[in-house]
């Protein structure tokens, strides 16, 4: 049945996070961007809202709530409304934990999920993106060769969130034997693995508030138990779709931040004797923002819904991510123009959103919903 109505619990999660994003996250966004750091206190505060732990089953110490990609999509929109970088930082453990929850063996769940049920934030991240201009999730350059009972991983990763403190990485690699989605495998790699080098923190255009780094895997040897899903491997489609959906939700939240900032500004700013919003050129940018934000939201929900049902979300997630990338860039671009020269000055957050939008649009996987 086609329905656009969140459940009562989902609406509550959304409202709580909306307030948290405005009161706690937004005020930190500028400083985190300028200093390229994220304070532990905000990560712990976000953690205590139960973002990841509630959906972990009780047997592993979690809250035992139903696993819900849609709830996570709603949460990400709100967090990213506060700040996209901090949203990614706060939910980066989901990029590690949710695939284990969905596709891990019992042994893997037992070993790793309890890490994410404590009082404090625990960093662990998904490592999918690679530093190549022709990066493609279906054509990874990081490869996993079988060796003895285990595998040898070689390659490079980039934009791994909180790589400076993550205890483990979920490294996505191509198995040498197979192609396309079937060739995708993920390996749980501890940060002190032999042959794993964590590069110095990256200096990026945007999303500077989430410290990120590259990984160099120089023949990292892992055991058979490190392969996510065990001998059965993983559903590569689901992993990629989940991360595309998460990114779409972040771009949606960022776009809403732009609109809600530009709108009152346009009403206040006087030029030629009247508010600039009274000129159609400006007013129509605002209309278009709202039209595109609605569009993005339903596409993202649609993709979250396919994931929630366990259906193949390859199509819906592709459309949602691509659309959100195009639309959020346009919105941030127009939002900056609404502020004119002031949009170019770092006193206003719009230039930050402009940089973040461009950055988000080229990422493929950092999170999962």
């Amino acid at each position, binding site marked *: *049945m086609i329905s656009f109505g969140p*459940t009562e619990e989902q609406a509550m999660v959304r409202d709580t996070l909306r307030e948290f994003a405005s009161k706690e996250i937004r005020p930190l966004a500028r400083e985190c961007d300028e200093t390229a750091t994220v304070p532990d206190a905000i990560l712990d505060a976000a953690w205590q809202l139960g973002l990841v732990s509630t959906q972990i089953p009780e047997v592993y110490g979690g809250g035992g709530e139903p696993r819900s990609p849609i709830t996570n999509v709603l949460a990400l929109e709100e967090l990213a409304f506060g700040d996209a970088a901090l949203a990614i930082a706060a939910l980066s453990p989901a990029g590690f934990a949710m695939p284990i929850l969905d596709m891990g063996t019992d042994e893997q769940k037992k070993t790793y999920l309890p890490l994410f049920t404590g009082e404090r934030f625990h960093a662990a991240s998904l490592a999918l993106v690679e530093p190549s201009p022709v990066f493609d999730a279906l054509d990874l350059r990081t490869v996993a060769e079988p060796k003895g009972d285990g595998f040898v991983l070689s390659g490079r990763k980039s934009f791994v969130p909180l790589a400076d403190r993550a205890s483990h990485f979920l490294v996505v690699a191509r198995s040498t034997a197979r192609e396309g*989605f079937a060739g995708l495998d993920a390996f749980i790699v501890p940060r002190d693995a032999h042959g794993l080098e964590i590069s110095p923190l990256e200096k990026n255009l945007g999303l500077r508030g989430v410290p990120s780094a590259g990984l160099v895997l120089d023949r990292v040897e892992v055991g058979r138990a490190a392969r996510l899903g065990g001998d059965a491997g993983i559903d590569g489609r689901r992993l990629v779709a989940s991360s595309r959906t998460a990114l779409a939700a972040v771009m949606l939240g960022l776009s809403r931040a732009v609109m809600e900032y530009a709108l009152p500004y346009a009403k206040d700013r006087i030029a030629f004797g009247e508010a600039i919003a009274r000129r159609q050129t400006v007013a*129509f940018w605002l*209309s278009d923002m709202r039209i595109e934000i609605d569009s993005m939201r339903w596409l993202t929900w649609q993709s979250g819904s*396919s994931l929630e049902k366990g259906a193949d979300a390859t199509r819906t997630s592709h*459309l949602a991510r691509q659309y959100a990338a195009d639309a959020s860039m346009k919105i941030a671009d127009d939002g900056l123009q609404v502020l004119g020269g002031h949009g170019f000055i770092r006193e206003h957050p719009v230039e930050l959103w402009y940089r973040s939008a461009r950055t988000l649009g080229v990422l*493929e996987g950092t999170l999962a919903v």
Partner: protein
Amino acid sequence: MIDFELTSNDKKLLDAVRTEALVARQYARHYDEHEHEFPPDELPEAKDFPNVWSLFAGRTADDTSMGVISLLMTMGQTWGDYSVRMRRGKGGLGNAALRAAGTPEQQAKWNDLTLAMAITEPGCGSDSAGVQCTAVLDGDEWVVNGEKIFVTTGCRADGVVVWATIDKSAGRAGIKSFLIEKGTPGFVVAHKEKKLGIRADDTAAYVFQNCRIPRGNLLGLDESIPRQGSGGFRGVMKTFNMTRPGVAAIGLGMAEAALDFTREQLEKAGARIEYGPGIHGQSAAAQKFLRLEGQFEAAKLTTLHAAWLGDNRQPNNDEASICKAKAGAAVREITQGCIELLGPLGISREHLLEKWFRDVRITDIYEGTGQIQRLILARSLLGYTSKELK
């Protein structure tokens, strides 16, 4: 619960609509090329098909709500053809106006007529408050004078709901709607328009010359002219909240047909369209196609959202404009893009793509252009009146 999956009952209904639509599509080119002919109310094949409405029987509360499924059915129909249908339902835009503004007695009296709606004049379209057509009370009759253009189903309709002013100095508040039946002396159907697309749809121009109608033909029977506010004008405009998502759906059905045809042809020619690879794993053609598909999907979802709000008795003024604006722009981009992708095949009249390109173009024009939708939406977002944002 947020859900985008059709139930088996939904699918049954939509499959039936599509089966009919494919039959209607066989006649699409004929009526495009024979603009002076009217498609019949029932195609010869229709007698062998069950009536789609009979499939509504087994629907339950777990199926998609009425407004949403109706829009999907509309899309299914125009996916076949814009104007040719297996069975043409009675009723036009004027019937919606009668339902919204007529007294119960008026509704009962004219319910069975097919009614067109005539607002637009040679001198005013978007600015519907600028109506020049006049109605003057003379004894127990209104005397109507003026011209109307672009009246959809204007030739075939039994009557028309006409906007005319009873007091030009009162602006919007002086504009009232009148029901005028065909055959009334002084009511002339001047000509049928020749159009870019939707040629099987008849679009007429009317002239009213001292056309006398009974006093009781004023819809709602309210002859007063409020000194403040816009009188019933705003209420009349609100009926468009109901019709705008419908107009969006009409356009989207054709855009979907264009996408389906384009995908089929591209794949036949060896260009694969896949959702797995990112930007570097796709041909330029596939990338372009996927973006068009994203536009389609976005416009469709905003349209269904507007109807879903209505089904759940939530306000949807903004969303009605959002979906009309979004669909209006999307169907243009989609059909233009599909032709670009198929090149010579796209422009050939051997196929229907060039027709869909012409047919969809009306979506962003009638029932409020894309600009007017943005204006309405911006006023709402900014809390501006129509004086503050022109």
